[in-house]
């Protein structure tokens, strides 16, 4: 993967971006969580060898945090889109 498509700026060199890790969902009621559930949110990762939805930050460009679907075996980027346009 040499290029990544920023939803604002288009195709840019991947060195302009900062990788933000796989997408996870925030706990709805943090005060009700057990230690195991906290650990699960903070540390546990699916770490799939497959298509993965993940965060990227265009830190040397427009500054947008957005989502990408990328295959972690081949690094092929399937699509990129703003967080607001995700399938909730």
């Amino acid at each position, binding site marked *: 993967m040499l290029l990544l498509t920023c939803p604002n700026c288009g195709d840019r060199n991947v060195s302009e971006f900062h990788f933000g890790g796989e997408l996870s969902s925030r706990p709805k009621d943090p005060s009700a969580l057990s230690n195991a559930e906290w650990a699960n949110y903070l540390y546990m990762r699916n770490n799939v060898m497959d298509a993965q939805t993940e965060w990227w930050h265009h830190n040397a460009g427009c500054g947008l945090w957005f989502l990408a679907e990328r295959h972690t075996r081949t*690094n092929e980027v399937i699509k990129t889109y703003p967080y607001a346009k995700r399938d909730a």
Partner: protein
Amino acid sequence: MSIQLIRQAFNGNRPPPKMWRSHELKEQYDVVIIGGGAHGLACAYYLAKEHGITDVAVLEKSYIGAGGSGRNTAIIRSNYLTPEGVRFYNDSVKLYEQLSDELNFNVMFSQRGHLTLAHTDGGVNTMRRRAEVNQIEDVDSRLIFPDEIKSLCPSLDVSDHPRYPILAALYHPPGGIIRHDAVVWGYAHQADVRGVHIHQNTEVTGLKVQDGKVTGVETSRGHIKTGTVLNATAGWASTITAMVGIDLPLTTIPLQACVTEPLKPFLDVVVVSGSLHVYISQTDRGELVMGASVDPFSSYSMAGSLTFLEGIAGHVLELFPSLSHVRILRQWAGICEMPPDYSPIMGFTPINGFLIDVGWGTYGFKASPIAGKTLAELIATSKTPTLIAPFRLSRFEENDLVGEKGAAAVGH
């Protein structure tokens, strides 16, 4: 070792017999180890030798030593940051020191000394702290300054001209390099002699669990019944553990390295710089082996990148300006499963009979003997040895992490 050599020379029995055999897959094994790298094979060897458990299968999806065991930069050291880490890696160094005799195979362990350079006040403070922790744990390790650094490594630029001048270094005399393939082959041979079955080109496709207990392993060559499975697959650990429905706190990231054309011997220490993200050593063949920190994003791909090569070349020239005309022969990548605290995760899981030896990030090879030995003890006795108790999986929900980033993030 030498008597063996002389005997081989006279008995006419060459080429030497095969170091390990191929077997048909049995229907059942007492213990199945997934992953035929240095960790898995060491565990099989210590199970057979120290605990008499020989009904063991080691399953490797490719050839043995194809993953991290054959892709690391072969550096051995024990100058870590936490007392738990220092004790653990120091026992590993001690086992490595005896390994050629133990395996009757020359692993070419060269304890040439290991220098971790500090270029900032913060770096010097970390080195000072590591030296103190190391000395308390009886590890030979101390802080030295540019005069002594220059005498140990005359080709290093210790002047104040570079962008990041060298202020001090952590000097660790027992550290060094080893022939990593020999470690894999030696363990494989001695495990094979004791009756362990090594199955290459055998990929695990599924794990059978009944009532919270492991009962079998599905492979590309058929089904195996077993009550004990060890996941020793390093970079691929999450994919195996997902088969029993457990998430691990791991992210798989490639780590790249490269090697130059052979030069006359000039560098007889291992040189590491955390600030410049580089480590470098010269092999017995004269080639310089160099590596950096992990790639900027997670991946299971083992393709090399030009970005890495440009970065490491610039950093090496900061330290050794005289290398500007040296050519790179080849580069490669391995994949590392990074845990949040840069310490391994070893031992029991919520699934009965399913054990893990994962989270080896960028520092797994140097722990192979002690990881194999302690896990063999754990499998044989069903009790966690004290040495690896801090590395249990439950430490994450108990908020009892073993923060080793200061000594493991780059300084291999």
